[in-house]
């Protein structure tokens, strides 16, 4: 593995991944891969998550195509030097921030959206000019295999590599030195990744999870709220890091919520949910059993059916849930929705703040003031008001967590920035040495006053200002020459 990383580093050092044209070619190749091999990719995702190919397309492939198009359209702008405001002393100089690639980047994916969670960061890392190793999750085997097969066929094989394997291989990989690591997964492994990164002073982006709360206000369009929540909760069989994990609402709303969600489930998946091609399954037996245990001792308002053979768990709602019970202690990551009753929004806010900062927060209300208040008084990675999941789809918004739900962010421009070093550059000339007299010893009080004036005032590039400043500079130069 060390050799592989070395090989990539060598290729990176050759400078081949720097020119924009090269990066765009690689991105275009990725796009071709997704379009030409769509069937194979969809089949792999579908096999891993018992997902229909249509869903696989709309859940995963759409996002990637959008991300590639974004990068292709915006790369020249993203990679360009950004000028910076100057002070009097640097007025005639060039000052800018130049984005540069970091080097060799490691992307560790998760199994729940196995394609997009490798590909979306990969697009960003390539666009930023890096060499990349991707390590798909071994739990989503078919996608891991198809990525290992396809990526080398379309991408430069010296700069981009796929490493597959389980815990042992990942541990070995983490011993190597990278220039950035982006990890999507759970908190426990997130800590291990950061600890390994610390040995090499490698910066990390950790996309973790948590329990994303969903507050339903009594003053809201309950029909719409329930419809949207049903969609977001049971998509991918609840195995979504930003799924609404649990609901907080006043006790009086519980029954109506249950009723409306039940109706919506019927609309979405039909009478016999097991037969719906749109309803997925739990990824493996371990998670299936874990989820089953969360149902123990709970009041099941509807759903609750499970089938070990097919790893099917019905869309389920629990009511009057005790905050101390197991289902409220860990991220559910399954099609079980606990409803915890609170007296009012104050109690909801306190409930949320007593817990770790979540990856996402949802509030349903007609009252914009209330929504703003919940936002103001809580913290989370992201927020969607009056809907769920959707902030993920706006790629002008950074996607990431805070506190236990993660650090760093990506998507769109944020991916590019995450995988770049923004290098400040100041280019001066060798003339104008007389102004520098101000700073050289032996020092004096008057020198000091002038030095402060020049150093600490900042100006924009406005034309009139330039003229004024040029005059001032001339005056200053004269003063310096004559009097100091």
């Amino acid at each position, binding site marked *: 593995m060390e050799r592989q990383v070395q090989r990539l580093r060598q290729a990176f050092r050759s400078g081949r991944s720097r020119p924009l044209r090269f990066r765009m070619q690689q991105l275009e190749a990725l796009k071709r891969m997704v379009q030409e091999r769509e069937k194979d990719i969809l089949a792999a995702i579908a096999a891993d998550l018992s997902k229909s190919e249509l869903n696989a397309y709309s859940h995963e492939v759409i996002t990637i195509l959008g991300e590639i198009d974004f990068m292709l359209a915006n790369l020249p702008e993203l990679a360009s030097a950004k000028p910076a405001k100057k002070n009097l002393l*640097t007025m005639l100089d060039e000052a800018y*921030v130049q984005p540069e690639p970091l080097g060799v980047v490691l992307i560790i994916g998760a199994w729940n959206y196995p394609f997009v969670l490798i590909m979306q960061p990969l697009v960003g890392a390539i666009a930023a000019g890096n060499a990349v190793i991707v390590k798909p999750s071994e739990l989503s085997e078919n996608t891991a295999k198809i990525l290992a097969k396809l990526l080398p066929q379309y991408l430069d094989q010296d700069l981009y590599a796929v490493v597959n394997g389980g815990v042992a291989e990942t541990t070995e990989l983490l011993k190597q030195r990278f220039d950035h690591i982006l990890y999507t997964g759970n908190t426990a492994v997130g800590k291990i990744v950061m600890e390994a990164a*610390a040995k090499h*002073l490698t910066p990390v982006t*950790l996309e973790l999870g948590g329990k994303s709360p969903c507050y339903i206000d009594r003053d809201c369009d309950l029909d719409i709220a329930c419809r949207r929540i049903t969609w977001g909760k049971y998509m991918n069989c609840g195995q979504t890091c930003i799924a609404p994990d649990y609901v907080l609402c006043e006790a009086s709303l519980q029954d109506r919520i249950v009723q409306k969600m039940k109706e919506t489930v019927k609309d979405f998946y039909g009478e016999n949910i097991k037969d719906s091609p749109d309803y997925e399954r739990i990824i493996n037996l371990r998670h299936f059993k874990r989820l089953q245990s969360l149902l123990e001792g709970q009041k099941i308002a509807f759903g609750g059916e499970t089938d070990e053979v097919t790893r099917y768990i019905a869309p389920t709602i629990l009511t009057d849930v005790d905050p101390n019970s197991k289902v409220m202690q860990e991220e559910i990551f399954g099609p079980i929705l606990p409803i915890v009753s609170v007296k009012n929004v104050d109690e909801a806010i306190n409930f949320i703040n007593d817990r770790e900062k979540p990856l996402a927060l949802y509030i349903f209300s007609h009252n914009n003031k209330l929504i703003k208040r919940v936002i103001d008084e809580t913290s989370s990675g992201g927020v969607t008001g009056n809907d769920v999941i959707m902030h993920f789809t706006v790629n002008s918004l950074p996607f990431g967590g805070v506190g236990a739900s993660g650090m760093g962010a990506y998507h769109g421009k944020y991916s590019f920035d995450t995988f770049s070093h923004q290098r400040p550059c*100041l280019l001066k000339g060798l003339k104008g040495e007389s102004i*520098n007299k101000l700073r050289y*010893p032996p020092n004096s009080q008057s020198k000091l006053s002038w030095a402060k004036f020049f*150093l600490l005032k*900042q100006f924009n590039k406005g034309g009139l200002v330039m003229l004024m400043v040029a005059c001032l500079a001339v005056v200053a130069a004269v003063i310096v020459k004559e009097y100091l």
Partner: protein
Amino acid sequence: MDSFEDTLRQLREAFNTGRTRTAEFRAEQLRGLSRFLRDHKQQLQEALAQDLHKSTFESEVSEIAISQAEVDLALRNLRSWMKDEKVSKNLATQLDSAFIRKEPFGLVLIIVPWNYPLNLTLVPLVGAIAAGNCVVLKPSETSKAIEKILAEILPRYLDQSCFAVVLGGPQETGQLLEHRFDYIFFTGNAYVGKIVMAAAAKHLTPITLELGGKNPCYVDDNCDPQTVANRVAWFRYFNAGQTCVAPDYILCSQEMQEQLVPALQNAVTRFYGDNPQTSPNLGRIINQKHFKRLQGLLGCGRVAIGGQSDENDLYIAPTVLVDVQETEPVMQEEIFGPILPLLTVKNLDEAIDFINRREKPLALYAFSKRSQVIKQVLARTSSGGFCGNDGFMHMTLSSLPFGGVGASGMGRYHGKFSFDTFSNQRACLLRSPGMEKINDLRYPPYSRRNLRMLLVAMQERSCSCTLL
């Protein structure tokens, strides 16, 4: 251990009351910092002179004035920095409100080194406060005079329920790091940087590490040696070389070396006189440990300028070494003292290879009359920051981010970058309950027709036209 726990708990409780959220509160704290600097300017200068033999000029320019400027910048821009940042939307979200909310993280820890003990305390502190956090400050125990002022006087100017100073050495810092913070800002060396990051990993605490390294300085044949010597010497011997962004070593041709050495001597004499030890403008080494370390380095290569040292005064003369081998100790560690080794290379390519063989530095310098040479060095290397034809002037522009890359650090600050560093960028999308017809496209049962329409809706649009 217990005393930390109480302090931290109190700060967290204060944070949870929401006290630090208003712009008024934050501005009041910043104004407090301003008053602190004004009221105690003399004392601060004396303390800096005591700790590092800093001249008034250096204290003002590199510590007090810079800190004041950051406070002023933050006060002027606080409200605009705090504003929600609107972002562009796609067709499906056209009628929604999409913005980035800047929020404080909560409890921030700032660990400060001894070389610019005031600057490296206040500049991060300004950012942390402006962003609405509560702060624990851990000043360096090595710069004792400043440590005393920060511990005893600074708190009087801030709301003490939201701000605390903790004192101690490596052991106490280690204990402190076992606690959970919401952000850790560390300035210091890579060795301790790794320890800080490992400790942060246990709590998944995000960090900024401002580390160091050996900052290369390439001098092209095509330049004016005296101008270059003036600039390099000033930045090298400022604060007796104890600057993380000081040019650490020079790479140049043999011919250029022969011109540079006498030019450097001219500069040293002009700046510090014939006997630099008597100059009020030259600093001293911080303590015995570092003095002895630097004294050891004087044996590398051959002394071309300076080389004198005086243990009683912690004085090391502005020194230039030549005939230095890459394998000698002076090229193995960050020098952090008034010693400047010159290494000869045949050409630009050799210089660039030399630089790229080593860890990415915090700063990189290149001197040449030809801009293509400068641009080549820039394009073919990596570093935290870069300055062509001067020393660390890029640091004085708060519109440029300041930070390292690779072994020289992660994260950045100064000006607005400080505010952003200490803020959580929270993505917010506020939708209306209306427009449900469009949402129907996304609900099961799925169909190809719906998918096609959804694709159209999700393309990004910056205009506010709608199909509806």
